[in-house]
């Protein structure tokens, strides 16, 4: 039997960039096929060609053995191809049923929406594939994982038998990822084929039947998970040997740098987000803050860096009280900050790399003499930092927006690490980055620690927390559940702590502080 989908020699030439170079891919009926590659390897371009958003420069698309031309999403849908984008295309104020109907409305008596009938169909699809969704719920009330299920239902409702998922796990909590994998298994059991785009190695090995690796627009090869390891896949992706483990020695903590006592912080909607948080961070150690997204980490970091109002409690850096100080005052004390959302807070995307390199030091010597900016000094510093931190950019004069996510992050890391810092607050420092960039940034963080900087690492990636931290503070609903020694806890124990409960098998010596 012919494969459901076959891509033969797909080439896509953009002006100046060969995004896809003779890419081949076959999707068998009822398999989960992972498409693995670094950011910018051409995964998304390939899928956009398949979905009819781009026209390939060369190559053929065969569906069930027959050559087809796809001119747009409508064509793709009629060919049975459905796509779930990384950023969901849902209307928050409409119900699940209304969102599913959108664009393909079922009507009765000519004009009235037949929501009841569609809701019935949605329940049928949900039952068949194990997608637990209430058709009458409103999107804005649903957690991200459920919204993703709605997207999948939307595709299935349109009778797709090929499902493309673009980085589906980027926005999910570990538990939601597990649920998604279960759903995918039940989908393929029912004969649906899945293309799973990702750059996360563990997920690929956990869920895929076959793995195709792309590098710089070319297919490197297709392997089965049985014959691959994380290391071999990483090497295929990056094209060289990659260190997945961060080499570090035990920390040698010195004096306390950051002391937080009984912190209370509210978010913009006046909800208490951080409550009664206290901890101490010493020079030369990494304190990881673990937790599911939205449990107060964002507000904690913002209050530490002067970007959010502190209701009560104290924050002191080297003995100096900085609760409700301005970001400038905090920076002046020697605090570096890698912000959680690099594009919103960390960069001015329209500025050239050069200006982004001095975004918070532009007013200091040697970058400014009084009011006047010393361009030569700025350019020299930017050139040096681009070189030192291996930022891949055509020049320091191109806007930061034109850089890939990994290189944008490197700009921020270069800027923050090239100041003499006492404390580094790194929030999601590697979110959305590829293996190569992650490896690099992790190495830099440990280097800083060894140089005597106190590092507060906030991350929702347990692997990252475990790889870098000396101690881990687990946050749940605005409180620190426990502070534990990183070396003495398992991933499962951390997962339980993140859900707010104290694991029974946690050795007492592992717990530094806890409120079990």
């Amino acid at each position, binding site marked *: 039997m012919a494969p459901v989908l076959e891509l033969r020699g797909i080439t896509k030439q953009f002006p100046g960039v060969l995004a896809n170079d003779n890419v081949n891919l076959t999707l068998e009926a009822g398999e989960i096929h992972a498409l693995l590659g670094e950011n910018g390897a051409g995964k998304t371009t390939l899928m956009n060609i398949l979905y009819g958003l781009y026209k390939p420069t060369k190559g053929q698309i065969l569906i069930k053995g027959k050559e087809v031309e796809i001119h747009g999403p409508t064509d793709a849908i009629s060919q049975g191809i459905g796509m779930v984008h990384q950023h969901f295309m849902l209307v928050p104020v409409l119900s699940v049923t209304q969102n599913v109907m959108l664009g393909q409305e079922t009507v009765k008596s000519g004009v009235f929406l037949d929501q009841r009938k569609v809701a019935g169909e949605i329940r049928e699809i949900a039952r068949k594939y194990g997608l637990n969704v209430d058709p009458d719920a409103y999107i804005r009330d649903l957690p991200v994982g459920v919204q993703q299920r709605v997207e999948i239902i939307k595709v299935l409702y349109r009778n797709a038998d090929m499902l493309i998922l673009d980085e589906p796990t980027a926005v999910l909590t570990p538990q939601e990822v597990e649920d998604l994998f279960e759903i995918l298994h039940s989908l393929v059991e029912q004969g649906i084929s899945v293309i799973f785009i990702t750059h996360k190695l563990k997920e690929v090995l956990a869920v895929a039947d076959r793995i195709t690796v792309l590098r710089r627009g070319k297919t490197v090869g297709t392997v089965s998970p049985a014959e691959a390891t994380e290391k071999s896949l990483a090497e295929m992706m990056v094209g060289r040997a990659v260190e997945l483990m961060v080499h570090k020695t035990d920390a040698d903590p010195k004096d306390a740098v950051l002391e937080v006592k009984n912190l209370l912080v509210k978010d913009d909607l006046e909800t208490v987000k951080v409550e009664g948080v206290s901890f101490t961070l010493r020079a030369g150690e990494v304190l990881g803050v673990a937790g599911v997204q939205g449990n107060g980490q964002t507000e904690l970091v913002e209050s530490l860096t002067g970007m959010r109002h502190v209701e009560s409690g104290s924050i002191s850096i080297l003995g100096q009280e900085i609760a409700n100080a301005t970001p400038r005052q905090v920076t002046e004390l020697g605090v570096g900050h890698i912000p959680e959302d690099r594009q919103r*807070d960390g960069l001015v995307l329209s500025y050239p790399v050069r200006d982004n390199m001095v975004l918070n030091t532009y007013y200091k010597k040697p970058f400014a003499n009084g009011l006047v900016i010393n361009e030569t000094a700025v350019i020299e510093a930017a050139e040096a930092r681009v070189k030192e931190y291996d930022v891949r950019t055509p020049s320091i004069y191109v806007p930061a927006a034109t850089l890939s996510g990994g290189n944008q992050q490197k700009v921020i890391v270069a800027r923050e690490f090239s100041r003499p810092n006492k404390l580094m607050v790194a929030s999601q420092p590697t979110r959305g980055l590829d293996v190569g960039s992650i490896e690099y940034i992790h190495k830099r963080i440990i280097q800083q620690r060894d140089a005597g900087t106190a590092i507060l690492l906030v991350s929702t990636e347990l692997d990252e927390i475990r790889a870098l931290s000396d101690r881990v503070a687990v946050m749940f609903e605005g409180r620190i559940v426990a502070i534990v020694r990183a070396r003495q806890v398992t991933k499962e124990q951390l997962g339980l702590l993140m859900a707010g409960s104290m694991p029974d098998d946690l050795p007492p010596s592992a717990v530094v502080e806890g409120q079990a």
Partner: protein
Amino acid sequence: MAQTEKKQSSSNKKKSFWRQAFNAMLVPVLAVITGLIAGGFVIAMSDPVVLRSIAPNPWHVAAEGEAVDPSIAIDLETALQYHPNEVDVGDYAVFKRGTGVLFREIVESQDQIEDKDKQIDLERAQRRSATLDTGNAGISLTFSDRPLFAFQAAWRSVADAYRALFLGSLGSPVQIAEGWQLYRKTGDSQALRNALRPISESLVTSIPYVFAGLAVALGFRAGLFNIGAEGQIFIGATFAAYIGYSFTSLPPVLHVTLAIIAGAIGGAAWGIIPGWLKAKTGAHEVINTIMMNYIAFRVVSWLLRGPMQRPGSGKPVSPVIAESAYLPQFFGAPLRIHAGFFLAIAAAIFVWWLLFKTTIGFELRTVGSNPNAAKYSGMSVSRNIIVAMGLSGALAGLAGASEVLGLNHYLAEAFSPGYGFDSIALALLGKSHPLGVVLAALLFGTLRSGATSMQSLAQVPIDIITMIQALVIVFIAAPEIIRWLYRLRKVEDEGEKTIFARGWGS
């Protein structure tokens, strides 16, 4: 080695600067051209001759004394002026019958009759129109009769209008050359000055545009939509006029400097109020600057009818300012170009320097491009909003001051024909870059001063000029149309983008 590397990178930068300049200029220039072309259609369509030539009712040249419908009649003189090739005196007379047109030729004698369908003799013609005589001319044209004629007429009217625009705004090169020669020979510069008058008027009109355009552009750079430039111009002019007439014994340079500074302070004060409101309460500057405009207009009206009214005058005008407060005009009449022009250019250079070479400008631009990143990097967003509105207001105030001190020498209610509002379009046209603003201001000044001669020489209504300006702005505001029209590829690097949506609703 390091030397060559450095050289290379600097030439790289240079190239990218020129490319950027080209990219930045291409679309606006095409937009201006497209606007002028579209304006040409408007001019052609507003010309009665063109309209008639495509209208179902044709022209009718009336015989002397003939009673005709005035909407379809032109006199012989006009017919000869516009249709020299179509009208031949003594040849034609025309009669309308029903809706269709009968084209009849009047001949002087029966011998000349060639085509009986078309020709009638004079006697019969006179039976229909008693006053008709040979020597009267007639012409009848519908679009289908003479398609080319409509195009010729359109071309003539557009060419006339734009020629008048050109002569009225830049002057006649021939006259300038003749004036120059006369000056060289005899030392009498009057002819030269007369010839240069149009260009001087264009520059004079550009002065307030440069100041006000810079004001709006600086606001744009900081992410603020200053619609209050007009009000700031009024307050600036009022402050400058007050200093101008209330001190009489100050030395000239000091007096004019004081008056200029007063104008800037007045505008700044008027800008800081909405800036402060936005920074402290989040009140949107678009609404508040509009409201501040109304307050400014009424305050000035009241002042000119009360405390600032010229003694002994019934009109709402201020006293004339002391001569020591004049911005000097350099050449004799009729050239009115004054020192305000150089002040405006200096202001543009200053704004460029401030925005791109100083920490103040870096902060303003960062706040405008990404307020979150500005906050993150330790800049005070609210302080920058106030600073930006103050600077913006000061520049607008200078526009008012230069009008009073350089041109009118007193304050009147209607001294600004909407410079502050035009300047919004102008700042957009100039892509919020000081150089772009100066170029756009020159364009606007030229269009506005040429409008007068377009009106008088080519009988184009003044509204048409306004429409052409509007068309230019429409095309500039919608670069996608221009890119589509000229099949241009989208340029990736569009420079800094500012966000204006902040503060509305959510």
